[in-house]
């Protein structure tokens, strides 16, 4: 179980607002954070990852406390068991596909999981290539594999498909579903694409003006 109680003053396009979120994510749940841009979706993700410090609140993941403002507790991202996929791919340009994955493993860990994941993302043939020759879809598959290699407690996806064309997006969505079915890790997807949310997530939260305006099954949600 992941508990999030976050409070943070942010500045949006229409001036400053307060982000206030109180959420519980069940183990293995695929949850989407949906909403207009500037609503604070990515901020929630970044606070969970440890890249942004909330003004107040609590983050508990399983038995671990990652953040607790009342005790002044704040774990840096390195100490949090997270996997993160960025919109901008963020593969290391100086490393091959294989080395990008190997970099994710702790020293001395078995490399069997690299081969397994390369097969899953169907990129075994390109493992010695540098990222800059890959297509956007291929890059994002490598980024996804890199993020789940350490078997994190939570997988964070920050608009991972929004830079891809429709066809690639469909393929990546299938892959995300496969990965989630196979590894079952709790997943938080940030997206402004309702169709994508409905295809992938089992639960969605609509974030509007800094607070959650809807929390339920994506299929039951209707715009307006």
């Amino acid at each position, binding site marked *: 179980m992941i508990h999030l109680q976050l409070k943070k003053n942010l500045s949006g396009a229409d001036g400053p607002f307060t982000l206030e979120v109180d959420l519980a994510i069940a183990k293995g749940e695929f949850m989407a954070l949906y909403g207009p841009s500037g609503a604070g979706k990515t901020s929630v993700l970044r606070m969970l*990852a*440890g*890249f942004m410090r909330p003004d107040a609140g609590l983050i508990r993941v399983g038995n671990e406390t990652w953040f607790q403002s009342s005790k002044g507790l704040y774990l*840096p*991202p*390195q*100490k949090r068991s*997270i*996997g*993160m996929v*960025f919109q*901008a791919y*963020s*593969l*290391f*340009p*100086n490393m091959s596909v294989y080395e990008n994955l190997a*970099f*994710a493993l*702790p020293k001395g860990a078995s490399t069997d999981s690299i081969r397994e994941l390369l097969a899953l993302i169907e990129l075994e043939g390109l493992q010695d290539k540098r990222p*800059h020759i890959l297509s956007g879809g291929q890059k994002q598959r490598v980024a996804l594999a*890199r*993020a789940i290699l*350490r078997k994190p407690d939570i997988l*964070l996806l920050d608009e991972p498909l929004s830079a891809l064309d429709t066809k690639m997006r469909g393929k990546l969505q299938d892959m995300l579903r496969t990965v989630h079915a196979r590894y079952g890790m709790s997943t938080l997807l940030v997206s402004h694409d309702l169709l994508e949310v409905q295809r992938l997530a089992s639960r969605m939260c609509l974030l509007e003006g800094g607070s959650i305006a809807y929390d339920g099954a994506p299929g039951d949600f209707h715009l307006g």
Partner: protein
Amino acid sequence: MSDLDLLPFYLSFKLAAYTTIGLFLLGLPLAYWLVFRPKRYKVLLESLIGLPLVLPPTVLGFYLLSLWSPEAWLGGFLAEYFHVHLLFTFPGLVIASMLYSLPFMLQPLQAGFRAFPETLVEAAYALGKSPWTTFWRVILPNSLPALLSAGMLTFAHTIGEFGVILMVGGSIPGETKVVAISIYDEVEALNYAAANRYAFILLVFSFLVLLTVYSLNYRHQKFLRLL
């Protein structure tokens, strides 16, 4: 060409090499700290580091001369307790050159680090990598053009140094008489042919360095667009 004394070239290159290596050791942590760990003193420190860009070299040379002379507290202290003499010696030239070329090392490094994609750093942190590992494995290997620019500019700038060296090093053959000083000495002695040869070699060298730095920068910008 047979009468051309090559010792000043050897000295100039040795000085430039020592200065460049020393400034890499000093400049890499300093540039990292200035870009990634901004603190309140940042503006003050950057202004101090940038001083050699606007000050006449003789001003820096004059203060070093005043500090290092055996009558001054620092010069006296170094001489009495460590038997170290910095005035009119090669080690003194290296320290003076490092101060004088510091902005030429720092500015390309800072520009390179500032343009570095932040999500690459965050991607490494999210994989559990420490700032130290991230610096060596991710930031440095992907900043090679900035490192090369910084190194080449520092090297070339040290080769072209004159005022500071004249003030704190003088013109001791084999110790502090570098090429730029030799040109001055030859002109003083009305030996224009020798001065011309030294000057021409420096001119070609400096041009080649800048040509390399600029073409590297253009190529790197193209590379960044590919990412």
